[in-house]
């Protein structure tokens, strides 16, 4: 009996000790960032600039002293190498000893797969680019966050922009890439549109293969159908090819195009995009946004990025910077609030949950379900003598509160409950003149 009591006492002491060591997290030498992006394959169109931006930002951040002296050390995983290899690399990095945060991934498929892994391993993971709303709606996570917008916000804002720009159209056709994002984004867009304008007729739903080299048949079919509006949520090379072929054959003259992800293609397409096309920014980062173009931090970043890569930042770049700033911001915030004490992964997650941060544009608020509330910027292309490619004017900002499904609700069901007066919501505001 005495032996048992001694044993219990000893265990209690040990437990208490381990408890204090848990609370007294030692300050690490460096923070390892497990970062993933597409470096190969078609999606490297988004991945490569984002990686360049991250490397550049981290370099500057470390040079300026890091987080109270602790530097960031990124390790990159290529998402282009296939799901098995990606997940094993991910697990390996997430299980390495030492202080680490995962900033992963672009692919919605990978995000769905890695979220439960990060939760199990109790590692903070930032879903930095993938847009699928499902990952955070299907399950509640403690360690998984998305620091950018989700597909629902992007699509609802796009429908609002369309209805405000061209309220009286009758027919619409869609040309989306045949994979998760192309399908899911159309589901949200369609349900939102039908809720806000029930008399619209959907005349064609085309899903050409991801990475298709030729869209002539789709263009021909659209020319024969003559829909009032053509929607495409494609991005990268696919969007470039589709738009070039559509524009060469005059399709853009006959139909109003709405391209919520075209921000990343404008610079390459030049004259292939005529004035009058609705374009979105997948968030609100735009180098020519009149409210932020002269913000010192944003301007310096855009200039440096342009110098280094030869291009203006696209939405993936803005999302990457948001992810990095949200993470480092949460560390700094915790350190400041706790007298320089270093946070555990759990404390970091708690700090992130209620945090407010800024990427390179308007402030963003992290919601309790790990989804960031970031407003959406959309506008209409116009020619501008200052650039060889179209700029976007008549910018409209849609605050996240009116385009995001509330916590605990599934997006597809929520958008069905939207009412037509949302189009005239007073919180929607014009940016610039």
């Amino acid at each position, binding site marked *: 009996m005495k032996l048992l009591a001694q044993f219990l006492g000893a265990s209690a002491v040990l437990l208490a000790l381990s408890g204090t060591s848990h609370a007294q997290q030692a300050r690490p030498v460096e923070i390892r960032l497990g970062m993933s992006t597409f*470096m*190969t*394959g*078609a999606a*490297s*169109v988004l*991945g*490569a600039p984002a990686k360049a931006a991250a490397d550049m930002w981290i370099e500057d951040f470390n040079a300026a002293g890091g987080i109270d002296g602790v530097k960031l050390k990124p390790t990159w995983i290529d998402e*282009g190498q296939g799901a098995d290899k990606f997940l094993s690399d991910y697990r390996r990095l997430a299980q390495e000893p030492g202080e680490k945060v995962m900033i992963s991934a672009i692919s919605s498929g990978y995000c769905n797969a890695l979220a439960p892994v990060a939760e199990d391993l109790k590692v903070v993971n930032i879903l930095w680019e993938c847009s699928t709303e499902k990952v955070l709606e299907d399950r509640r996570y403690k360690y998984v966050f998305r620091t950018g917008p989700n597909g629902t916000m992007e699509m609802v804002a796009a429908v609002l922009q369309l209805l405000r720009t061209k309220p009286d159209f009758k027919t619409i056709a869609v040309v989306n890439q*045949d994979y998760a994002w192309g399908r899911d984004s159309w589901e949200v867009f369609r349900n939102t549109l039908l809720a806000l304008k029930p008399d619209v007729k959907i005349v*064609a*739903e*085309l*899903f*050409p*293969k991801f*990475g298709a*080299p*030729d869209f*002539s*048949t*789709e263009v*021909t*079919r659209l*020319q*024969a159908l003559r829909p009032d509006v053509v929607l495409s949520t494609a991005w*990268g*090379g*696919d969007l*470039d*090819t589709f738009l*070039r*072929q559509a524009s*060469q*054959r*005059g*399709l853009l003259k006959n139909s109003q195009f709405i391209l919520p992800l075209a921000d990343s293609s404008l610079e*390459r397409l*030049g*004259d292939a995009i005529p004035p009058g096309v609705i374009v979105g920014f997948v968030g609100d980062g735009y180098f020519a946004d009149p409210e932020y173009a002269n913000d010192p931090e944003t301007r310096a970043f855009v200039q440096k990025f342009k110098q280094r890569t030869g*291009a203006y930042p696209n939405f993936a770049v803005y999302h990457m910077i948001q992810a990095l700033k949200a993470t480092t911001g949460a560390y700094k915030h915790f350190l400041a609030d706790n007298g320089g004490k270093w946070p555990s992964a759990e404390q970091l997650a708690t700090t992130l949950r209620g945090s407010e941060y800024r990427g390179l544009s308007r402030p963003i608020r992290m919601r309790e379900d790990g989804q960031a509330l970031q407003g959406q910027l959309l506008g209409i292309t116009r020619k501008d003598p200052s650039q060889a490619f179209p700029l976007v004017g008549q910018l409209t900002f849609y605050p996240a509160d009116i385009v995001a499904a509330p916590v605990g609700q599934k997006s597809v069901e929520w958008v069905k409950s939207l009412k037509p007066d949302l189009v005239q919501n007073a919180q929607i505001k014009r940016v610039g003149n």
Partner: protein
Amino acid sequence: MDLNLILLASVDGVSYASLLFLISLGLTLICGVFGVINVAHGSLYAFGGYSAATLLAWLTPHTSSTPVMILALFVAAAVVGGALGMLLERGLLRFFQDRDPILQLLVTFAAFMVLEDLQRMIWGSTPVSAGDLAGRMGTVELGGVTFMNYQLLFVPGVALAAYAGLQFLLRHSLAGRQIVTVIHNREVATALGINAARVGTLTFALAGALGALGGALSVPMTSFVPGLGAEMIVTSFAVIATAGLGQITGALIAALLIGLSRAMVVYVLPELEVVMPYLMMVAVLLVRPHGLFSVTAARRI
């Protein structure tokens, strides 16, 4: 589906089939001579497109003449495709000549991956395209729908010319007849005094140029991104499997079949567009396991 739509779909089908045919042609030629599926052919397609785009971008400030630009497409394809094809044969496949065909396949796959990385090193991951060349040739109205002359007339014309030229070369020129002999039986051909090694290099150069031409012709219409080569090689493999390995006329028919069926299905059942080439392939192979145009092979002892 009315007659007008069938006409429209055929036009798209033919233009897609033309590109597919040009790429399959090189693939099937190598398959005939070496008995190996050259996976690296996909990279030749990509290199053809990228280098044509680079050449056009360089030319644009100097000239605005459309014929010069068209010529540039052919020159880029012939030089880059021919040289790379030769290099592949001389520098790599020659050393695996009499090895297991599976090993040869893996070697070409390795070459494909190396070339793919090389291409990323040179041209990066940003989509590359050759701007306005296709637009310069004008458009034509057909059944209320605008088509580009480039796509409607020029590309199919080049494909047909390549087909006719290759047939002529194989039947009536000395080098061509040597190729045919080597395809038929390498050993006998060597015994007859044909330099099989030289024929091999020649075939690879020709096939490389044809693959690169496919790329060069598509760069004014499409955007080249990393991974496009793999995309094309898979579809053109469906073409040559449908046609029967090493069959040139077969490749033409099979490319048309796949191109047309793909275009039609976009009107009727768009969901099936992606799998259409493979459905056609399976349908043909179920009836004729060696492809549409396979010939009875002589039994060798």
